[in-house]
């Protein structure tokens, strides 16, 4: 009563927001003297037309699903985890240690071991800000941001001083053993002799991210813990009345969030680079915030938003490759998408709601 139908809320609103974002992006592209329609075609060509483009788009999508879910789980407890980037970096350290020091006989075992290690390391990195928030009231936004910088420095130190093989020049670990190689989409789906998905980094981890979506959905809406997390997120006083410990929920929600962010590194470190490198996260931790925001903290929404941002990442790379449009512009476009779908959401929602109300009243009359 008094609300829009679900389809309008879930599809129409984001769609209109996207169109608005596209419109303003077009103006920006025009402003730097390029043709927006051509640019758009190029993005679609590069990201969606060819299988290799898809291979990249889905690779980015996988990253964003993990980080988006991480932000969403924390947000259901009203905790703003800005530290996905750092948690993913430290998760990568876990992956590297698991792959370098344990002789896995087969990739299927390696991915289980690497995921576990990534989740544990990511969760551990999230634990400290969570504990500080729960016990000391240090604001989690501040601490998680700071922990991103610390993670970056720790990673640099480990790569330069500890994990770098002697004689190697670049700050990276040794390559992982052949047995840990994860099947990529080319190996999985291309028929004999076909070039389908060739050279693209999308790999089996994509399916792991889909599993993570299901896991988060079940966790949040079907379990006792999810009920605790959501009720704590909506009202801390009510949670206290119910007998839920705020400390416990804060810490657990952040551990799960950190674990999900950490698992992103299975895709980048084990699935793509096959060794630990310095900048494998590429800002995915931050994009996750936008993905969760746009996906309304629901796994299905996050999946869709991750696809969109995957497309933007890959399409943007193509733009930079084939035109004079600088790569930074794609950040502008992403920012516009975030602005319109997230921050200015009500600008679209309110008039639309009024429209539906007026329409509904006429029908009732």
């Amino acid at each position, binding site marked *: *009563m*008094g609300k829009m139908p679900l389809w309008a809320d879930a599809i129409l609103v984001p769609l209109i927001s996207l169109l608005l974002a596209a419109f303003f992006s077009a103006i920006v592209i025009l402003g730097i003297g390029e043709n927006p329609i051509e640019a758009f075609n190029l993005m679609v060509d590069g990201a969606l037309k060819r299988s290799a483009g898809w291979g990249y788009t889905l690779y980015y999508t996988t990253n964003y699903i993990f980080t988006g879910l991480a932000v969403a789980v924390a947000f259901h407890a009203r905790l703003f985890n800005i530290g996905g980037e750092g948690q993913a970096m430290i998760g990568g350290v876990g992956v590297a240690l698991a792959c370098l020091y344990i002789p896995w006989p087969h990739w299927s075992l390696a991915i289980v071991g690497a995921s576990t290690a990534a989740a544990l390391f990511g969760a551990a990195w999230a634990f400290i800000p969570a504990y500080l928030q729960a016990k000391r009231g240090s604001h989690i936004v501040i601490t998680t941001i700071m922990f991103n910088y610390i993670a970056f420095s720790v990673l640099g130190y480990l790569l330069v001083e500890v994990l770098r093989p002697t004689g190697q020049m670049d700050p990276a670990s040794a390559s992982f053993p052949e047995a840990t190689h994860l099947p990529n989409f080319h190996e999985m789906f291309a028929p004999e002799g076909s070039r389908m998905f060739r050279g693209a980094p999308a790999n089996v981890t994509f399916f792991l991210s889909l599993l993570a979506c299901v896991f988060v959905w*079940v966790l949040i809406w*079907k*379990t*006792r813990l999810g*009920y*605790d997390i*959501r*009720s704590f997120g*909506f*009202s801390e*006083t*009510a949670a*206290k*009345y*119910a*007998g*839920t*410990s705020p400390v416990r929920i804060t810490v657990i929600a952040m551990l799960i969030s950190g674990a999900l962010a950490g698992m992103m590194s299975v895709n980048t470190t084990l699935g793509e680079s096959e060794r630990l490198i310095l900048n494998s996260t590429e800002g995915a931790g931050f994009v996750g915030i936008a993905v969760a925001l746009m996906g309304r903290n629901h796994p299905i929404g996050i999946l869709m938003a991750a696809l969109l941002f995957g497309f933007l990442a890959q399409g943007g790379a193509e733009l930079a490759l084939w035109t004079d449009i600088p790569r930074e512009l794609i950040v502008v476009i992403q920012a516009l998408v975030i602005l319109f779908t997230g921050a200015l959401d009500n600008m679209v929602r309110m008039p639309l709601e009024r429209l539906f*109300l007026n329409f*509904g*009243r006429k029908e*009732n009359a």
Partner: protein
Amino acid sequence: MAAPAASTPLALELKGISKAFGPVQANKDISISVRPGTIHGIIGENGAGKSTLMSILYGFYKADSGEIYIRGQKTNIPDSQAAIAAGIGMVFQHFKLVENFTVLENIILGAEDGALLRPSLAKARKTLKTLAEEYELNVDPDAMIEDLSVGHQQRVEILKALYRQADILILDEPTGVLTPAEADQLFRILDRLRKEGKTIILITHKLREIMEYTDTVSVMRRGQMTATVQTKDTSPEGLAELMVGRKVLLQVDKEPAKPGDEILKIEGLRVVDEAGVERVKGIDLTVRAGEIVGIAGVAGNGQSELLEVLGGFQDATGSVTVNGQELPLSGHGADGQARRAAGIAHVPEDRQKEGLIMEFSAWENSVFGYHHEPEYQNGILMDNKGILAKAADQMERFDVRPPHPHLAAKNFSGGNQQKIVVAREIERNPDVLLIGQPTRGVDIGAIEFIHQQIVNLRDQGKAILLVSVELEEVLSLADRVAVMFDGQIMGERNASETDEKELGLLMAGVTGETS
């Protein structure tokens, strides 16, 4: 009342005011005439549209149709500035005062004459003095708001309106936070204002206030004005019937209590809050099986803390036992779940902030606090289907309207939200029921039902501790009454052997022994 002279224009006239929020018709073709120099009561259940109507009058909402006449002049009120300019003053239920400003500073806030404060303050001081003499509205102009009693804070609100030259004063549930004595003072002031020619609109749900203090009364039900009558021509029963649309039982129907064993025993209970202030100063209290013990007192005298301690979300020292079992009062084991396991159910004072998750659906709320119980689990998942079925059945039996378990709690009216909470707590069949403000913001029809449920539980031999700021409610529902003042129990009386006057004195901290 004598018929008004034909020449005096009405103070306020509304003609055909309608306002819809989407498909919900909050006000439907409302017309009302208020004569100058009268107290006009507006009474109605929650959600009847009283607040919407007053918000339109004060410029918060714009009416879809209809006209407002003030002193015979057609007036547009697009915002509250316009309402003030038209001479309308509003005293909200929750005061809009700056706590760490003085009375004088609060009064000129928003009505300063220029960039410099000194001349405004001087002028206000003078005006305040005349107002105080004229209406017996005495307040120290240099006192900080936070140091004033609630009754005096309300006077500041009234002074604020008068300073802005209001001659129509709207008061929204003004006695909700006052002691009986403070309420009497308020009505003396209102009477004085009326004699000076001011017009007062009193919004309340208390039939007694309407009957005692108003000249005319308008009854609202479901967005419509069902009747406007001279107060002297009506009765409480008649008004209640007009409000609810059916006959209502105003008295709680109950047999004398048959108290059994001591169930809940409180000894030497002390609570120190986070700021280090002692809120509860050594309370001893016993509740036996099959009796309702009511705690009366003005809000903020330690009753809330008492409930919080018993409910498991406030640390304390002292001793609390249930059926002889000592309960931990701090640290591990002193939480809501442990209390429920010990047989204590709790209908909290603030259902919207504590008792319910407003965004959760009714069925999710139907197990809130008990959601860890094994009976609601299905392996590692929650038994959502089972909970839903149970909730639907519960809503049916407790007459929750509408009976849609999927509706979010925030979409129910106050009374129905309360029924959801009461149903949840009573259905657990507890040994002890704590119940805070059972009917705050609850409509008359639902009050009757909720009171009956509480009495039924008592008759099943349960121990019930009731906290309410409504003295009438405590008197009619409780078998024994303890009065709290400043963190202490000033005295205990049998409900049948005391009256509002005696309790009112105790509530103000005056013990019988000294007088």
